């Protein structure tokens, strides 16, 4: 029995690590969706976080915790710069502004020597342990649980439901949206840092639009009524491709299909919150 468990773990531990990292990314986009904003830049934020954390480890020999913190802070700071002018505006501007952002990040990674250009970064020391991932995930779940029934969580929900009405209630809509976006970028950055320290290798191509769509699909499939939705969605979509290997290059088509079908026919995702009627 233990032998079976050992071999099972050996085969699937990478998958389990990936499930947790994807869960974090799903939460990072959830927090902006929770206030009605669509960020397509979270893959890029993950990339910034991954490179920053890896460089802190490789060049500065920084302790792992510090590398991760730096990997969260830089994307958060970049999000602040993008968010302030964009989130004053309502509706779809954030989505449009962040869509092209991944491209910029790729171009920058490709052209900087410190990031290894098109070759990427090699030999990032494997520092990420299972308990690191579980700890970060635990902290995130605690954070979202506390947020749920607090004045801050209610303000985000109010903004999602009706931004104008929320503003008239005295809710500072722009600053809440910016905070949500910045926190999301921070989470994505930390997830990137954790990921970098177990995949050993970073390439500028990994954090593009396709991955941004992956992250969006996690959240939309699970549903954005509660933070459990994105976690369930990311788990399913991380495990599923393992079982659907035969799809090969059509795997992304499945993402596309899920997005359309869920938005059109299942607008609340698979996890819905029921209120008493």
């Amino acid at each position, binding site marked *: 029995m233990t032998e079976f468990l050992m071999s099972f773990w050996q085969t699937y531990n990478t998958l389990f690590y990936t499930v947790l990292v994807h869960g974090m990314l799903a939460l990072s986009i959830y927090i902006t*969706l929770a206030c*009605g904003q*669509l960020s397509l830049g979270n893959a890029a934020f993950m990339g910034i976080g991954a490179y920053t954390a890896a460089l802190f480890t490789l060049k500065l020999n920084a302790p792992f915790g510090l590398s991760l913190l730096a990997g969260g802070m830089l994307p958060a700071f970049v999000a602040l710069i*993008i968010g302030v*002018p*964009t989130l*004053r*505006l*309502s*509706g*779809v*501007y954030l*989505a*449009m*502004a962040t*869509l*092209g*952002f991944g*491209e*910029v990040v*790729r*171009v*920058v990674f*490709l*052209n900087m020597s410190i990031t290894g250009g098109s070759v990427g970064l090699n030999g990032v020391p494997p520092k990420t342990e299972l308990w690191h991932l579980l700890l970060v995930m635990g902290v995130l779940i605690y954070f979202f649980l506390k947020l749920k029934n607090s004045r801050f969580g209610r303000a985000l929900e109010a903004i*999602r439901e009706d*931004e*104008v009405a929320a503003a008239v209630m005295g809710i500072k809509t722009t600053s809440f949206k910016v905070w949500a976006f910045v926190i999301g970028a921070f989470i994505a950055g930390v997830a990137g840092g954790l990921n970098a320290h177990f995949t050993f290798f970073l390439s500028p191509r990994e954090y593009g*639009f*396709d991955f941004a*769509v992956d992250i*969006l699909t996690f959240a*939309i499939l699970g549903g954005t009524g509660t933070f459990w939705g994105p976690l369930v969605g990311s788990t399913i979509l991380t495990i599923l491709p393992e079982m659907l290997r035969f799809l*090969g*290059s*059509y*795997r*992304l*088509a499945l*993402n*596309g*299909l*899920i*997005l*359309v*079908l869920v*938005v*059109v*026919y299942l*607008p609340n995702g698979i996890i819905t919150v029921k209120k008493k009627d």
Partner: protein
Amino acid sequence: MFLQQFANALVLGSVYALFALGFTLIFGVLEVITLAHGAVFMIGAFAGLAVVTKFNAGLIPAILVGMMASGILGWLIDLLAIRPLRKRKFHHLAPMIATIGCATFVISISQGVFGAEIYRFPFDFMPATSYNFWAMQLTLLQIIIVGVALALMLIIIFLLNRTKWGKAVRAVAETPRTAALLGIPVERVFQLTSFSASALGGAAGVLTGINFNAIHTFMGGPIMHRGIAVIILGGMGDIRGAVVGGLILGFAEIMSVAYLSSDFRDAISFGLLFIILLVRPAGIFGSNIERKG
């Protein structure tokens, strides 16, 4: 030298303008930012290429077939992903996310079918003739691209301003509800707009494919970024804005490559978008954005 760059910018910019025109038209009428416009563009390019390689067709049939294919795809996307949402209240992000799904689906299927390789037109497809104007040298191809793009834009602008169909489209863009009360078949206008705007995207696809002589399944992404920058630059839903914005972006890219460095070419559109959001979020021609009360 500068004049030559100017000519190159005109070629690039007119294709951007053509792409953005369809993009902004859909937003103006359907109030949907269709992030599938890049995929529609790519399908148009492949369809144009297919009639050239399979049937030895010339330029004009290639463009027409490309427009047809893209138009039908755009119409299908509207029918299957956007129309069901129109029928009920939805969050303003829903149609946009649905179009991301469509784009991903179409691109992934195309990758499965066509692979990752780069397709080219037969080498004798366009004669390499070129003409000199003052200090500019323009190839026949470049003249055709600018000519076709300008002609299509003028046709659309003419149709919008002078025909019954155009009046209906503009009425729907203004307020769909009032238009419906006036007896305008709103649903048909939506479908027609999706078709024709996507056809413009298809024409831009064929022209881009010929211009760079490279057609591949991931060609829709870069132009999508540019299209977004252009419609924000020009003012969302603004026809003039799309045309002028496209030309400005073409100019900015060519000049930055010529006088700065080509490394950051793909980041120019984002830089432009960011600056415009900072200083004039309504765009060049947009009236100030006021929240609806």
